[in-house]
C-alpha cells in the first residue's frame, strides 16, 4: 500500500482517463485509510523540509510554574514542544494554547512568530473555547470510530459534522452507509461502537494538524464523493484545506482541536438515527451517529451521566446536510403544537 505520491497520481490519472473513478471506488475502507494516512505523512514531511533555514522566535510563556521566555524554532516548534520544556503535567493536561491572549491555537500547530503563550486546560475559569474544541474533536473521533467499527463488506462514507453545539447534548457525525439501507442498530451494536470509541481514546494518539492545497485534498479523499464535493467550497477562501489526523484517520475540519485523544475520558455512543433526504437531493439518506463524552479527569456521578446519555439518545436537532429545510425535531413538534393549541 505504501506507494510514493507520484505513482498514486499516475494511477489516478490513468483511471480518470479511462473510466472515471470506478476502480478507485473498489478501494476497501481500510486501504483508503492507509492511503490517506500515507499521503498525509508525506505532505507533512515535505512541508517540514520546505522550512529551510531555521530561524528562532521568542515565546513568552505565562502561567505555572512561572512566567519565562523560551527560544523556539520558527515554523517547526509547536506549543506542545513548549509544554515539553515544563513538565509532563503540562503536556497531558493542556488542551489548547492561547496565543497573544486572543488567538486559540492547536497544541500541534507550528508557531509562526514571536508571541505570548498560555496553556488552556479543561478546568480554567473561562473554558468555552476549550469545550468547543473538545466537542469538535469528539465528533471527529466519532468519524474515526465509525470507519473502523464496521466489517470490510460495509462501505462507510463519512459525510460531515456540524459545528460544536454543546447545549444540544450530543456530538454528531453524519455518515453514509450505502450498503445498509435499512439499519436499526441493536443495543449490542451500540455497545460495540462505544467500545471501539474507547479503544481509540486509549491509544492516546496526538491529534495532528496540516494545511494542504485543494488538489492534494481532492487526491486524498478521492474514494469519498461527499468530501470531494465539499472540498472546493472549503478551499474557496484561500485555496487551503485544514486536515486533522488521529492515529491513521484523516478528516477535514476547521479546528482547533484538543491535544490528544487521551484527553477524552468517559464516552458513550448513544444513538444512530436515520436522516431522510429531500426529494430533489441526490443523496437519499444518511445516518446520524450521536454520542456524549467528558474530558479525562472529570468525575461525574453515574446517575448524572445517565441523564446525559438518555438525553443524547434523542435525535439531535442540528441542521441536516441533505435536507436543510426540514426541522429534524418533527417528533417533538406535534406535542408542542398541541400544547399551544
Amino acid at each position, binding site marked *: 500500500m505504501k506507494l510514493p505520491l507520484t505513482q498514486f497520481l499516475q494511477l489516478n490519472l490513468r483511471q480518470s482517463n479511462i473510466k472515471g473513478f470506478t476502480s478507485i471506488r473498489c478501494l476497501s475502507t481500510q486501504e483508503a485509510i492507509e492511503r490517506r494516512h500515507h499521503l498525509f505523512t508525506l505532505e507533512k514531511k515535505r512541508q517540514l523540509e520546505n522550512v529551510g533555514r531555521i530561524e528562532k522566535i521568542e515565546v513568552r510563556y505565562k502561567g*505555572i510554574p512561572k512566567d519565562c521566555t523560551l527560544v523556539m524554532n520558527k515554523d517547526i516548534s509547536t506549543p506542545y514542544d513548549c509544554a515539553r520544556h515544563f513538565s509532563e503535567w503540562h503536556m497531558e493536561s493542556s488542551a489548547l494554547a492561547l496565543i497573544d491572549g486572543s488567538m486559540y491555537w492547536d497544541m500541534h500547530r507550528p508557531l509562526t512568530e514571536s508571541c505570548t503563550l498560555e496553556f488552556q486546560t479543561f478546568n480554567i475559569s473561562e*473554558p468555552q473555547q476549550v469545550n468547543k474544541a473538545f466537542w469538535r474533536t469528539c465528533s471527529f473521533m466519532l468519524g474515526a470510530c465509525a470507519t473502523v467499527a464496521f466489517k470490510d463488506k460495509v462501505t462507510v462514507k463519512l459525510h460531515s459534522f456540524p459545528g460544536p453545539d454543546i447545549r444540544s*447534548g450530543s456530538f454528531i457525525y453524519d455518515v453514509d452507509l450505502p450498503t445498509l439501507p435499512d439499519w436499526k442498530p441493536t443495543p449490542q451494536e451500540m455497545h460495540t461502537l462505544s467500545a471501539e470509541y474507547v479503544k481509540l481514546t486509549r491509544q492516546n494518539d496526538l491529534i495532528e494538524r496540516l494545511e494542504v492545497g485543494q488538489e492534494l485534498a481532492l487526491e486524498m479523499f478521492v474514494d469519498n464523493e461527499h468530501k470531494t464535493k465539499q472540498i472546493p467550497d472549503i478551499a474557496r477562501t484561500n485555496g487551503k484545506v485544514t486536515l486533522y489526523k488521529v492515529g491513521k484517520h484523516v478528516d477535514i475540519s476547521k479546528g482547533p482541536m484538543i491535544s490528544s485523544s487521551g484527553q477524552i475520558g468517559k464516552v458513550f455512543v448513544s444513538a444512530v438515527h436515520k436522516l431522510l433526504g429531500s426529494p430533489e437531493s441526490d443523496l437519499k439518506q444518511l445516518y446520524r451517529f450521536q454520542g456524549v463524552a467528558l474530558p479525562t479527569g472529570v468525575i461525574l456521578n453515574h446517575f448524572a451521566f445517565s441523564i446525559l446519555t438518555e438525553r443524547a439518545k434523542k435525535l439531535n436537532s442540528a441542521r441536516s446536510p441533505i435536507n436543510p429545510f426540514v426541522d429534524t425535531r418533527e417528533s417533538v413538534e406535534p*406535542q408542542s403544537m398541541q*400544547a399551544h393549541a
Partner: protein
Amino acid sequence: MNQAQVTKLVSKLRIKVAPEPRRLRNPKGPEGRLDKLRKTVTGLIKFERIELNFNRADEARQYAERLISEAIVHGDCHKPTMEIADYWLLEKELIHKLFKVLVPRYENCNTAFTKMYRAPRPLYSRNIEKAVLELRGNPYPSLINKQYSNRHLIQNVLLDAAKYDYRQAKYAEMADKIGKTENQELNKLSKKDEITTE
C-alpha cells in the same frame, strides 16, 4: 478550684486531636517515635507538601500545628519557643522560615495551618493508608479542583441544558393537561346548554 484553666495557657488547635497519641512502633521506643515525628515536621516545613503514611501524617500534623501556633503567639524573642523550634526543626535554617515566612502567613488565619488529604494507595501492595499533608497557602497547584461549580465547565453546561430540556417538556405536559380540562369543561357547558334549550 484554684487550678488554672488549661485552655487559657495553651492555644487551642483547630484540628481534631485524638485522645491518645499513636505509638508509631519502632526499636528505639518513645524516643524513636519523636525522632520520626521531628523528621516529618521538618520535611513538612521545608517542602510544604509531603505524601506519607496516614498514621504518621496525622500524628506529625498535630505537632506542626502546635509549633506554628506557639511561634505566632510568642514570636521569635521568646526563649522557650525558640528552644521548641530548635528541637523540632532538624535543619536550622528552617527556624528562620518558621518565624519570618510562616508566622506572617498565618497571623490572621482563622483556620488550621495545615491540610491533610487521603491519598490513593498503590495497587497490589501492603494495604497501608496514605495521606498528603500540606501547609496552607503553599505555592503548588491545588490538589483538588475547586472550580467544580463554574457553570462554564463542560459537565455543568451539559447538565444545565438537560435540566432546561426537562423543564420545557414538563411545561408542555402541564399546558397540554390544562388545555384538555378546558376543552372538557367547554364540552360539558355546551352539553348543558343543549339540555336547557331542549
